[in-house]
């Protein structure tokens, strides 16, 4: 566990800074209150609002670790939301709608995986296809309007409370734990990192690379469908144009802040989740400060640029020198 804290150090510091900034903007941000069996508070808020991006980051991290990328997750969110809304409106029970949405995510992921693995398209191109076409598919399902629904079961995906926590928070945490176990309690993590670092060496060592590649895209599609369900339940409707719009970029950023290189290789689900929480914390802070929304994007971009520059190979030696000097001074 101490190894994890070492790896997460810079990210934890950043998270602390973001939370402090939130406290500065809204004193009492860290307070937790229990009202009618549900926890309220700034941190719960961040996790609840951030659940879709956390889910996307959980799916995106293994994809990026294989030296790939999935640009289509925002569009998959829209399709999954549309499928769910259309099924309850067609009279199906909400569990059927949920299963239909998840199945749609699986199929979308399989499509991406097959394009990348069997047809050897570059991941950025392969998933760009669904990124563009996906919104069209979602619009066809919603027939061009926001497809609202009144089914309380489906809406509950976003609004229900379980064990005092909002359901989206629990879904995101459960997805993180299941994915973490799936990659680390089995050999999948090792295989993903081997394929991402050196595809040829991995193949010659007998790693089943095609299966691994298809698998990570399928998983990413599934996570995107979960995120899409939450987004649709949140507004009690499927908005083909705006659901999940640009969230693929947030997810990629979260994974990169989590320390995974876009060149593939080492990855961490927990650090990617941390990255997504940091992003959401920043967004919450800027909104609460009452700053104009256009500043939101600018500030986020600045902070992200700073994080990435600090993590860059060009900066690491200087930082290492600085920390040893500080440590020495501290010891003296």
């Amino acid at each position, binding site marked *: 566990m101490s190894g994890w804290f070492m790896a997460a150090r810079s990210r934890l510091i950043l998270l602390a800074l973001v939370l402090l900034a939130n406290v500065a903007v809204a004193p009492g941000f860290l307070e937790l209150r229990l009202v009618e069996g549900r926890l309220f508070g700034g941190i719960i808020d961040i996790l609840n609002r951030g659940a879709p991006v956390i889910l996307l980051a959980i799916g995106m991290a293994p994809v990026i670790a294989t030296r790939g990328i999935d640009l289509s997750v925002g569009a998959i969110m829209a399709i999954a939301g549309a499928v769910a809304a259309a099924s309850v409106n067609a009279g199906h029970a909400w569990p059927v709608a949920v299963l239909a949405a998840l199945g749609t995510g699986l199929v979308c992921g399989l499509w991406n995986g097959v394009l990348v693995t069997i047809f050897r398209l570059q991941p950025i191109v392969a998933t760009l296809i669904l990124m563009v076409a996906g919104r069209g598919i979602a619009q066809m399902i919603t027939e061009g309007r926001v497809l609202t629904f009144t089914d309380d079961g489906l809406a509950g995906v976003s609004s229900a409370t379980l064990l005092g926590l909002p359901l989206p928070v629990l879904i995101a945490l459960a997805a993180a734990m299941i994915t973490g176990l799936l990659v680390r309690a089995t*050999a999948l993590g090792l*295989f993903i990192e081997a394929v991402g670092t*050196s595809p040829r*060496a991995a193949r*010659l*060592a*007998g790693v089943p690379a095609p299966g691994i590649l298809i698998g990570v895209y399928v998983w990413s599609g599934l996570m995107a469908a979960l995120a899409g369900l939450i987004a649709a339940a949140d507004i009690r409707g499927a908005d083909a144009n705006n659901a999940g719009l640009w969230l693929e970029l947030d997810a990629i950023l979260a994974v990169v802040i989590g320390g995974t290189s876009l060149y593939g290789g080492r990855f961490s689900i927990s650090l990617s989740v941390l990255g997504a929480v940091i992003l959401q914390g920043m967004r919450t802070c800027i909104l609460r400060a009452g700053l104009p929304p256009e500043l939101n994007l600018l500030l986020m971009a600045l902070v992200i640029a700073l994080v990435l520059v600090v993590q860059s190979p060009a900066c690491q030696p200087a930082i290492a020198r600085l920390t040893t000097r500080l440590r020495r001074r501290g010891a003296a």
Partner: protein
Amino acid sequence: MGDLAATLLSAHGLTRTYPGVRALDGVDLTLRAGEIHALLGENGAGKSTLINLLTGAQPVEAGSIHLDGREVRPKSPAEAAANGIVAVYQEITLLPNLSVAENIYLGREPTRFGLVDRARMRREAALLLARFGLSIDPAQPLSAFSTAVQQLIAIARAVDMSARVLILDEPTASLDSAEVAVLFRLMRELAASGMAVLFVTHFLDQVYEVTDRITVLRGGKLVGERRTAALPRLDLVAMMLGKLPSGDSHLQRHAAREPGAPFVTVNGLGKQHLVAPFNAEIRQGEVLGVAGLLGSGRTETALLLFGAERADAGEIIVDGRPVTLKGPRDAIRLGFGFCPEDRKLDGIVPDLSIAENIVLALQARLGWMKRLPPARQRELADTYIKLLNIRTPDAEKPIQLLSGGNQQKALLARWLATQPRLLILDEPTRGIDVGAHAEIILLLEKLRDEGMALYVISSEVEEVAAYADRVMVMRERRQAGMLAGDDVTPSAIIDAIVMPGAVPPSGRAA
């Protein structure tokens, strides 16, 4: 040796060390004005490193380079070019989407009032190309032309940059015989004009056709410089493959033993454009050596045998049963293991730890669900680190920090952990230090004595002759012979590689 007055470039004691391996060790090279000089050697002999030092792509660690008696120390290819040393590589390093003229004058465009004078650039480019016998429109994009023409354009650019020493790195690898003839005529003209041309190739016919002198490198060291006309082909191959000049091997050949049970039989296995059908029998407790020059098809036999390439002819019989290999996983399931030639690209997984690299093949065979527990992984890694004497403080270190020899041992460990019945090794001792080299040879002999079947591709003929029971010789992508018993000697292997007296079937040289 040679006329000192005509010496254009002389390099002395050039040395370059990479972590754990001496890529170039005190190498001398002399190029005379007006000569075409071949630079020969197997992969890892140090040819690329030597070129990199001459062109300033890498800094010289020790040694000196003199051009016209004046010491030069290029810090970049641009600086070397300014001194008159230019290299043209097999992979064209020009920009395909720019025009021919733009490529020729890239970075030194003629200007007029501060703007690029395109008309003049095209005019001068056309004149320059005409001198090289190329009547093409310089305004066309480079990609509109064949590889051969692009190659010539690259040379034209190099020569126009007032090159005095022109280095051609495998320029003929993707040319047909007519194009080769054009290139050779150009090389002769350039040499006649007083330049020195350093020609790197693995086509020996072409060496004899066009060069005046030959410098041979092996394992980062200079083997020698000879006049081409005075060096029989047999002696040249012996120099390249490290056969000692004096009679037969200094290494003790192991005593003849009872042949083991046949494990793998290869019948007419081949693939078009890769390697012609070949036959081999691999027995338990035996080493089948595979010899041949670079490009002879030796590596390709291993790729077919391991399923890394799918054969389109012939069959593999394992334990008396025919098998089909759809990929490496099928071969691994049969108990095969493969250490590829390019350790860095095809062997190690650089980001991962030594332990992860060692367990990778075993884990891949167990499948993703049956993860080896971390304790078991550590135990396996520690066992092999100790057994193979891998020098590292810790199994958790990234494997890329190890020296070449220790990386190779870790790759051997990766396969030994799967308890293989057949180990396929492509150049297992290339590019590694002397100590690890000897350890690996001892290990192979030990594995053989324990009953493993070994298929060892090597360009070290002395060694192969010492430890192999039989040797398959490859030439020009086909099987050229199979030596067994007392016939396995360095001389016999080189004879079979060169096949003296026969006319090489190569149609390349005109």
